[in-house]
C-alpha cells in the first residue's frame, strides 16, 4: 500500500516539478524544480529496490550535475524573470508537441509485452551493488570501457582548456603586463 501511494505521489510531483522547470520564467525556480525532480526520480529507484542506482542518481545528478548548472547560473541575476522573445507561440507549441510525439512513437511504440525481456538476469542472491557490478563487468564490459575512455578524454580536454595559463600567477604579475597581454 505504501509503495503505491508513494509511487503516485512521486509521479505527480515529478511531472509537476518538471512542468515548472519548462514553464517558469525564473531561472531560480526552474533550477530548483529540476533538482527536486531529480531527487524524486531517485525515489522511484528506491521504490523498485534499486537502492544503489537511486543513490547514484542522487550523487551524480543532484549532487554534481545540477550543482554545476547552478554554478553556471551564478553569472546571471537569478532573481529577475526572463523575457523570452518568441516570435510565435503557436509555432513553438506545434513544433514542440510534434517533436515530443515523434520521440515517444520512435522509442515507445516497439515496446509491447511480447518484446520485453530481461537481457541480463541479475544473480539471485547478489546484493544491489554486486548485481550492478556483475552485469556491468560481464555483459556490458565493452560499452563500460568505451564510456570510461570517453570520460577520460573529456577530462584531459577540460584540463587542457582550463589550464592554459595556469603556471602564470596573476597576483605576481604587474598590472601593466596583464593589461598589455589583454590588448594583444
Amino acid at each position, binding site marked *: 500500500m505504501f509503495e503505491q501511494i508513494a509511487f503516485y505521489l512521486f509521479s505527480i510531483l515529478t511531472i509537476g516539478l518538471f512542468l515548472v522547470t519548462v514553464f517558469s520564467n*525564473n531561472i*531560480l*525556480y526552474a533550477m*530548483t524544480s529540476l*533538482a527536486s525532480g531529480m*531527487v524524486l526520480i*531517485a525515489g522511484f529507484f*528506491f521504490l523498485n529496490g534499486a*537502492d*544503489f542506482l537511486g*543513490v*547514484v542518481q*542522487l*550523487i551524480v545528478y*543532484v*549532487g*554534481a550535475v545540477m*550543482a*554545476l548548472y*547552478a*554554478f553556471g*547560473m*551564478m553569472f546571471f541575476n*537569478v*532573481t529577475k524573470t526572463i523575457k523570452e522573445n518568441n516570435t510565435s507561440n503557436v509555432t513553438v507549441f506545434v513544433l514542440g508537441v510534434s517533436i515530443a510525439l515523434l520521440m515517444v512513437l520512435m522509442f515507445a511504440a516497439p515496446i509491447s509485452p511480447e518484446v520485453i525481456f530481461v537481457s541480463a538476469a541479475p544473480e539471485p542472491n547478489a*546484493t*544491489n*551493488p554486486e548485481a550492478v557490478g556483475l552485469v556491468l563487468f560481464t555483459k556490458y564490459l565493452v560499452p563500460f570501457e568505451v564510456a570510461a575512455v570517453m570520460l577520460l578524454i573529456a577530462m584531459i580536454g577540460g584540463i587542457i582548456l582550463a589550464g592554459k595559463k595556469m603556471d602564470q600567477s596573476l597576483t605576481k604579475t604587474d598590472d601593466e603586463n596583464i593589461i598589455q597581454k589583454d590588448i594583444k
Partner: protein
Amino acid sequence: MDALVVGTIIKIVLVLLIVSALAGFGTYIERKVLAFMQRRLGPAHVGPFGLLQIAADGIKLFTKEDIIPQHANKFIFSLAPVITAATAFIALSAVPLFPTFVIPESLPLIGGAIVPSIIADVNIGVLFVLGMMAAGLYGPLLAGMAQANKWGILGSARTAVQFLSYEVVTGLSVLAPIMVVGSLSLLDFNNAQTGGVGSWLIWQQPIAFILFLIAGFAETNRTPFDLLEHEAEIISGYVTEYSGLRWGMFFIGEYANMFTISILAAVIFCGGYGDIGFVPGWLALLLKVTFFFFLMLWVRASWPHIRPDQLMWLCWKVLMPLAVINIVITGIVVMI
C-alpha cells in the same frame, strides 16, 4: 499497524527531537570548549554553568523578527533553510544510532513496538549518507542565490565549489575501506571490526581515515574550511540576510551534519558500537562520537582559515591523488 512501523515512527520522532536538542547543546559545548582553549569562561551566567544559555538562545531565535529582503525570491529564500535541515536529518536516517530495543508490552498504545537501530536499513548506508549530504549543498546554494545580496552570491559560489570538490575526496577515501570490507552497509562495517581495538579499520587504512576526516570537515563547513560564511571575507556568506528561526535551521543542519560525520568516522574506521573491553558498545560509540565532535571544536580553536585557492589546491593536487593512490594500493593488496 505492525510493530516495526510504529517503532520506526517513534525512532524518527526521537532522532528529530534528540538531534535538534543536541544541536543546541552543541553550540553550548562549542562555546565552552573554545572559551577554555582561549583561557576564557564562555557562557556562565544563565543557569548552572551557563547551561540555560541554550534555552535563552532558543527563545531569542524563535521570537526574533523574520526578515525577508525586498528583492529576494521569497519562496526559495524560505525553502533553503528547510533543505539544509531536512537533508541533514534524512542523512541521519541511514546511520545506526542506538541498539535495537523493544518497548515493553505494558505500555498503552505503543507497547510491543520494535524501535530499530537504523531508521531506514538500506544496504548501501555509506553511499546513502554521502548522497544525502551531497544533496544538502542545495541549502546554502539556493539561500545565497535567492537573497539578492553580493555576499550571498559569493557564499553560494563557494558552496558549489567546495562541496563539489570535497565530495570527490569523501567518496574516494571511503572507497578503500569499502573494498576491504566488501560491503556498503554500515552494519557490515560494524561487524567487520568486532575483534577489539586491533581490528579497527583505522590501522589498515590510516590514510583513508585522515582524508575522510579532512573532507568531512570541508563538507560540514568547519573551521579550516569554513569559507562559505567566512566573516572576514564575505560577511556571513550565504546566511548574510537570514535572521531568527530560518538562520537557526541552518545551524541545526550544520550541527546534525557534524554528528553524522562523527558517527560515520566512528562506525567506518573506529569499530562502531562494538564493545571495548569492559566498556559496553553504546557507550563506546558515544565516546567516539564525542571525541570526533570535540576534535572539530579543537581544530577550530587551533588552526586558521585557509584561502579559497589553497582549498582547491589541497583538494585536487593533494587529497585526490593521495586517495586514488590509496585505492590502487588497497586494490592490489585485496587482490593478492
